[in-house]
C-alpha cells in the first residue's frame, strides 16, 4: 500500500517534471510569443479565443460574452472580461494588447504611452479579409501552425458552401434606423457566397449607410434580412415594425434574423453563409 502510494507519487512527480520541461521547451522555442494577452475588441476577442494557447489569453472584452453580439459568448464566459479602459488593461499587466482599428484612439495611445505593445486589427470587409485576420492573429500570438490549420479548414468549408447559382435572388439587409450594408462589406460578401445579390449594393451603396424605407418597399427584395430585437425598447428598432414592412413581408419576401455570425471576420461567418444558403434553397423560385 505504502509502496504503491510512493510509486504513484514518483510517477506523478516524474510526469510533472516532464510536463514542465515540455512547457519550458515550447516557451524557449517561441520565445517572442506573448504570454499575457488582453483583447479589448469583440472581433479580436473571438480570433484570440480560437487561436491562443491555454493560459495565453488573460481577458476578453465584455461584448465577447454578450450573446447578442458575440458568436462565442459561451466560450467567453471562461475568461475574465474587461471594459476596454486603459487603466484596467494596464493593471492586467499584459505583454500584448489586441484591439480593433476603430478602438477609441485615446485608449490605444494611452496604452502605448505606458509602454504596452498594442496590435490593431482592421475590420474584415470580405471573406478573403477574414483569412488575413486569422493569419494576423496567429502571427502576433506566435501560433502560426494553429493559424494555418484554421485557414485551411476555413478554405475547405467555404469551398463546400460557396454557391455558383445561376439565378441569384435579391436580398436586402435592413437593420434598426434603416441601416444597411452595401458593397465592399463582409455582409455583402456573405450574401454573394450564399448565392444572393445585395439590393443595397445594386442601389449604389458602398459600405454601411441608411436605406430609405421607401426605396426598400419600392425595390421589393426576395428576402428581407433584419436583426433580432434586443432587450429594452428603442425607437431605432421600431421602424422594423412599420406597417409598410409588414405588408412587404406578407408578399414574397421572407424574414431572416441575422445573428452575431455576421459581425466579425472569423470562421463563424461560414455559419451565416450556411443559414442563408438554406434559406435560398427553401425559397420557391430562388433555389436551384
Amino acid at each position: 500500500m505504502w509502496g504503491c502510494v510512493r510509486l504513484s507519487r514518483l510517477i506523478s512527480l516524474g510526469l510533472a517534471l516532464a510536463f514542465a520541461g515540455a512547457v519550458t521547451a515550447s516557451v524557449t522555442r517561441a520565445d517572442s510569443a506573448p504570454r499575457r494577452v488582453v483583447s479589448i475588441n469583440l472581433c479580436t476577442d473571438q480570433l484570440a479565443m480560437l487561436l491562443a494557447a491555454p493560459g495565453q489569453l488573460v481577458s476578453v472584452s465584455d461584448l465577447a460574452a454578450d450573446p447578442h453580439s458575440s458568436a462565442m459568448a459561451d466560450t467567453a464566459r471562461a475568461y475574465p472580461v474587461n471594459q476596454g479602459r486603459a487603466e484596467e488593461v494596464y493593471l492586467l499587466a499584459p505583454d500584448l494588447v489586441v484591439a480593433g482599428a476603430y478602438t477609441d484612439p485615446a485608449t490605444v495611445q494611452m496604452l502605448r504611452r505606458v509602454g504596452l505593445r498594442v496590435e490593431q486589427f482592421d475590420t474584415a470587409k470580405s471573406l478573403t479579409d477574414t483569412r488575413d485576420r486569422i493569419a494576423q492573429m496567429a502571427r502576433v500570438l506566435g501560433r502560426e501552425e494553429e493559424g494555418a490549420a484554421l485557414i485551411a479548414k476555413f478554405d475547405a468549408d467555404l469551398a463546400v458552401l460557396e454557391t455558383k447559382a445561376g439565378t441569384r435572388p435579391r436580398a436586402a439587409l435592413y437593420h434598426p434606423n434603416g441601416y444597411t450594408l452595401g458593397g465592399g462589406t463582409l455582409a455583402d460578401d456573405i450574401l454573394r457566397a450564399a448565392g444572393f445579390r445585395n439590393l443595397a449594393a445594386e442601389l449604389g451603396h458602398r459600405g454601411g449607410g441608411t436605406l430609405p424605407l421607401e426605396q426598400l418597399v419600392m425595390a421589393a427584395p426576395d428576402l428581407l434580412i433584419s436583426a433580432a430585437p434586443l432587450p429594452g425598447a428603442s425607437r431605432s428598432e421600431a421602424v422594423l415594425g412599420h406597417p409598410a414592412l409588414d405588408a412587404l413581408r406578407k408578399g414574397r419576401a421572407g424574414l431572416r434574423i441575422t445573428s452575431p455570425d455576421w459581425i466579425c471576420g472569423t470562421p463563424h461567418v461560414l455559419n451565416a453563409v450556411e443559414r442563408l444558403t438554406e434559406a435560398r434553397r427553401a425559397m420557391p423560385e430562388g433555389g436551384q
Partner: protein
Amino acid sequence: MSRLALALSALVAVLFAASLTTGPSNTSTLSDLSALLLGGDGPLPLVMREIRLPRALLGLMIGASLGLAGAAMQGYLRNPLAEPGLIGVSGSAALGAVLAIHTGLAAVFTLGLPLAALAGAGTGVLLVLMLAGPRGASITLILAGIAISALAAALTSLVLNLSPNPYAASEIVFWMMGSLADRSMTHVWLALPLMLVGWVGLATLGRGLDALTLGEDAAEAMGIRLTRLRLTLVVGTACVVGAATAVAGAIGFVGLVVPHLLRPLVGARPSRLLWASALGGAAMVLAADLAVRLVLPERDLKLGVLTALVGAPLFLHLIYKTRAEMT
C-alpha cells in the same frame, strides 16, 4: 385678414402636396397622386399611403400644434419669448415619452405614450407659469425655461443611457431635435385625439387673450375668468405639445418664429394670431421636413437643426430688442 388666411392656406396646401410627392424613389407627381387616391398594383400605393401620407399629415398636425401653442403662450404671458421648445415644455414632454417607452408603459397601453408625454408637457407648462408669474417677465421666464429644459434634457439622457438597449443612447438626438422619418399612420392615430382636444381648447382662448392685452384688471372687468383661461391654456398646450413630441421628438423655435413673423400681419391681435400661427406653423414644419429630405436625403438630418438655424438668430434679435426696451 381673409386674404392672409387664403394665402397661408394655399401655402400649406402646396407644401403638403410637395411633401407627398418628395421621396427617394423617382416617380412622377401624377403617378404618386393617383397611387395615393386610387391605389393600384405594385408597391407605389403602399409607399404613398403608409410612408409618405403619414409623414405629410404629421408635419401638418405638429406644425399647427406648435404654432398654435406658441401664439397662445405669448398671448397669455404677453411676452414674445414664450415658446414651448425654449421654455422647456417640449423637453419635459420628451422626458415623459422616453419614460413611457423605456418603462414599457407604451407597449402595454396604446395611448400610454402620448398620455405620458402630455403629463410631462403639463408639468413643464405648470412649472413655467408658476416660476415666471402671471405677467411673465422676460428674465424670470427665460431663467425658468433654461432650468426646466436643462433638467428635462438631463433626465431624458439619463433614462436613455440606462436603457439595456444599445440603440437607446443614440436616440438622445432624436428626442432633442425631432424628426419625421419613417413614421407611420399608427403615429398619426396616436397623436390625433390629444391634438384635437388641445386645438379646440386653445382656439377658445381668442377672446380672453384679446381682453388680456388691456391688462388683467380690465380683462376681469370684461368678464374673463382668468383662472379658467389659465387652466385651458395649460391643458391645451400640454395636449398639443405632448402629442407632437411623443411621435416626433422636440422640435424647437416653430412657436417662436411663426407668431413673430405673423404678428404685424394680423394687427397684433392675439385671437387672429392663433389661427394664423397654426397655419404658419404647419407651413414651417412641412417646409423644414421637405428641406431635410432634399438637402441631405441619406443622413436623416433632424428637423430641429433647420428650425434652430432659422429660429436662433431671431431669438437673439428678440432678446436684444427686449434688453433695449428695459434700459
